[in-house]
């Protein structure tokens, strides 16, 4: 799964891999150039080495199967850069086939959208998915929102994913599934992080794109308390400006920048490696 188109630049093997990007249209507003070829150019320009890419329209569909097929086809010419993150809806008949197909396609992660499916915090299907992903060595990617609450369309009424859901997701799966939480701010991150055991904390990462920098300095606080290794690079293409993660890092106070020099931020590569290494290993938590 490392083919690429002749027009694509060659990705750097050491540059961070973005854990949150999508292709396709968004139902509530125009997003410029949501196509894969443009994403590749932007990733190269911003110094990223690739991206985990989901289907943006698929997040709003009931049956994710057609969107997943479209995603695989759209990313196929750019697989050196773009790694598919298909949607697996665990309350849908034969969802296990979707997970199996994701493994076959080389997906590093699968995406879940529980509030859009009406899956509450204690839904048994979520535990089943977490267990299966742990067995398969596939990360679960969970965006908690797509837009700021203050600008949402009236039809976008699903609400944000709760900390309770995220804690349940991480605690489940007998300790093997890795979870990436995307789009959380400081409060949600801390409500999840400090609600987990030390062992459970080792299988969750937070995409930091929505965390505030100075003067509140929430990002610096999380670098200090949660640690750089649990905070992951992301671009949020095509919904948000891709420069945000870099701006947050550039504006860290000196002490936090020193911490980063000793302990790098997480990215898709490091998260996938950690999750695969844990595959089949029983939890100590």
């Amino acid at each position, binding site marked *: 799964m490392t083919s690429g188109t002749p027009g694509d630049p060659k990705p750097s093997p050491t540059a961070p891999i973005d854990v949150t990007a999508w292709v396709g249209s968004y139902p509530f507003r125009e997003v410029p150039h949501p196509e894969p070829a443009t994403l590749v150019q932007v990733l190269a320009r911003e110094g990223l080495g690739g991206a985990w890419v989901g289907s943006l329209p698929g997040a709003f569909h009931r049956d994710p199967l057609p969107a997943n097929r479209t995603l695989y086809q759209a990313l196929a010419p750019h697989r050196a850069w773009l790694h598919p993150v298909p949607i697996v809806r665990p309350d849908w008949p034969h969802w296990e086939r979707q997970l199996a197909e994701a493994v076959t396609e080389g997906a590093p992660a699968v995406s879940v959208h529980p509030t859009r499916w009406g899956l509450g915090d204690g839904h048994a299907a979520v535990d089943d998915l977490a267990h299966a992903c742990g067995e398969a060595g596939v990360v679960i990617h969970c965006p908690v929102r797509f837009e700021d609450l203050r600008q949402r369309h009236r039809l976008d009424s699903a609400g944000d994913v709760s900390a309770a859901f995220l804690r349940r997701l991480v605690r489940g799966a007998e300790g093997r599934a890795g979870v990436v939480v995307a789009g959380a701010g400081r409060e949600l991150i801390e409500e999840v992080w400090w609600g987990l055991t030390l062992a459970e904390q080792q299988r969750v990462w937070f995409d930091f794109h929505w965390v505030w920098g100075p003067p509140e300095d929430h990002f610096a606080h999380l670098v200090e308390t949660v640690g750089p290794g649990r905070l992951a690079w992301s671009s949020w293409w095509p919904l948000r400006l*891709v420069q945000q993660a870099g701006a947050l890092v550039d504006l860290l106070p000196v002490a936090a920048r020193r911490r980063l020099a000793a302990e790098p931020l997480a990215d898709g590569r490091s998260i996938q490696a950690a999750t695969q290494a844990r595959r089949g290993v029983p939890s100590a938590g």
Partner: protein
Amino acid sequence: MAPRGRRTLTPAPTRMLPPSPASPPLVDLPLLDVHAHFHTPASNRSDWQRYNDARLEAGDRIGVRCHVASVLGSWGATSPTYFTSPRDQSAANRWMLDFADQHGPRVRAYVAVNPNFTAHALAEITRGVADGAVGIKLAAGRKADDALLDDIAAAAAEHDLPVLQHVWQHRQREWPGQDASDAVELARLAARHPRTRFLLAHIGGGGDYAHTFPAMQPFPNLVCDLSGSGIDRGMLDAALGGVGARRLLWAADLTLCTALTKWRALAHTGADAEALADIAWRNAVRLFPAGTFDAVLGDVRPPREDA
């Protein structure tokens, strides 16, 4: 700025920061942050001084030459942030003017007022002008098109001050904690006061900015700032296409990180060097009273006077 009559001052921060960073700024054009805030000892947070220091330090790192700032009462400690009591607002303005004094040209002050108390608001403006205020800040104590704002808008014109108006982009309903306005409502005020210059706040500060630009478009005395935590792709393109670079001002409000992000993204919108300079600082020079930024812009040429 000329020395002013001394006021009864709130104690100022004891930790003064160096005026310039050790390393070159991240942005190579001078930036003027026209939407900044600071906290005071009366704020309901114990880290108010750390917050202020962090703002100045991050501003230095980015390349902000001047923070034009306001304090909204006690930030909720003794009266609501958007419905400040006259006593809280007077104390906040005193503190802000003093803070600007201490930091010289690096910080300039808005005088913030609650339009529900018209006589107090007008007195604050008069006093603020005497003490060096360079603009008027209106938060969300009253809808922007309310007749209560007319005297304030007239005072702004009389004193040659711009008015920074807090705006909820496309406010479709009332939100808790504020009597927020949107661009249509501010445009009504701008239409009634064509000699007054209005700065529509934070297109990234919540709501639907796509509604804002067409509402602003017919009113040349209405410009907007880019601040706010919202960093939607498409926002900057819509702003440039909707009102043009001459009516956009770079700013940060509560998040300097998103302000830096927007600045970096502007380079990929097709905006040329002239447009970038307009957004970074030249539009601010045009908007604020003559000489407001002279001390921090000595190394760059002034904008053309055909503005």
